[in-house]
């Protein structure tokens, strides 16, 4: 049985992996939200 808290994947690796996909996605969502706000102007 693998234990998620055992050494193996470090927090830094986990953080890097999530930032790698999260930052571009967040950038895209912000761009879209800025455009969507025109609906309420």
């Amino acid at each position, binding site marked *: 049985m*693998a234990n998620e808290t055992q050494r193996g994947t470090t927090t830094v690796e986990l953080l890097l992996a999530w930032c790698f996909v999260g930052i571009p*996605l967040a*950038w895209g969502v912000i761009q879209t*939200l800025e455009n969507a706000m025109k609906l309420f102007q």
Partner: protein
Amino acid sequence: MSFLDRSHSIAKPGFNRWMVPPAALCIHLCIGQAYAFSVFNLPMTKLLGITASAAGDWNLAELGWIFSIGIFFLGTSAAVFGRWVEEGGPRKAMFAAGCCFGGGFLVSALGVYLHNLWIIYLGYGVLGGCGLGIGYISPVSTLIKWFPDRPGMATGMAIMGFGGAAFIASPLSVWLMSKFSTPTHIGVQETFITLGIVYFCFMMVGAAIVRIPAPGWKPEGYTPPVVEQKLITKNDVYVYDAIKTPQFWLIWWVLCLNVTAGIGVLGQASAMTQEMFPGKVSALAAAGFVGLLSLFNMAGRFFWASTSDYIGRKNTYFCFFAIGTVLYALVPWTGSIGSVAGFVICFLIIISMYGGGFATVPAYLKDMFGTRYVGAIHGWLITAWSAAGVFGPVLVNYIRQYQIDHGVPKADAYNITMYIMAGLLIIGFICNFMIKAVHHRFHMKPDHEALRGQVAVDAAGEPAGA
């Protein structure tokens, strides 16, 4: 290339399962670019004329085939290569998807350079389409195996990436084209090369970090439910047996009808708001509405798929069909009273359920057919999406045109379509209601698995993966 094998991607003790959703997102955030391919259409009509279309330039109808061929090959490759994806493991599949998708862009760049549309059909359409299909199903069963406690949330997260990819691809492509364009040249070719390389690298990161759990692995503290749940099997069904079951085809119709109801609206949202509320909604506001729909499409994928872990897959689809029917029936009323807010709210909820339908279905398949071949079965099910991609827009566009041709004002031209969509959702409700547990004669027997393992040993010279 043995590092791509299934046996080399088995997680070592201590591997954190939360590394797998980013790996899946690396793939889906790239291949979802397909939703944003239309940003290239207009610039590609002016490759020779630069400021305006010239003789010999491609027209929009010809260019529209690139996306259609891509979606066709998405469905076809997911169905054809599903078993290979499942047996070869996620890393090999992600690598293949990256090569096809990135390579598709590079071949298309050559097509632009030579101004040969057939090369682009072959590049983005055929090669890229295969990358889309293989990439779409590649992380599904892996995520389900890592998250047996929350399979809906796990697959919902990946498929949310597919819905959100256009948010990145659209502004990125426009920005790249502006950088590569000069007064005498439109920078589509350079943009294709850049995107091909960037997407390939991004997908390789996913392939590098993905892992499959070791045989018998369970999340810490997780105990599979002891009480038997009628619609959640503990057995596996072989992919080619699964497509012989009535359950598969009922789920096929459930997905097809749910997608049909959403996809037609998604394509016509801008025109529909402006025609139903003349003078009240500007073109700019309509574009904002389309952006908002895309956000709800993406968020719905995560929200509904995660919710399905608590209320069950069948109940989640009951929600889609019941709430969707009511909302579609309400849309003409919001138009008649001139309520833009009511109209917007109705469609935002409808679109969230459209996305939710995509994201919840892998877990539904896992419940019905087990985890062993869920990715391959999902590949076959994606043909429902291709079918809905034809039904939905045809229903909305042709019925609208028929209404207008028969003297119905533009503001009321969508009413019949909305009632037809509501009717389709009622049929979907009935299909969902008819889904029962798969008969045990379809379950894989231990000797079936052993025989298949022996075939793999004979063919590859080493034991088949876990």
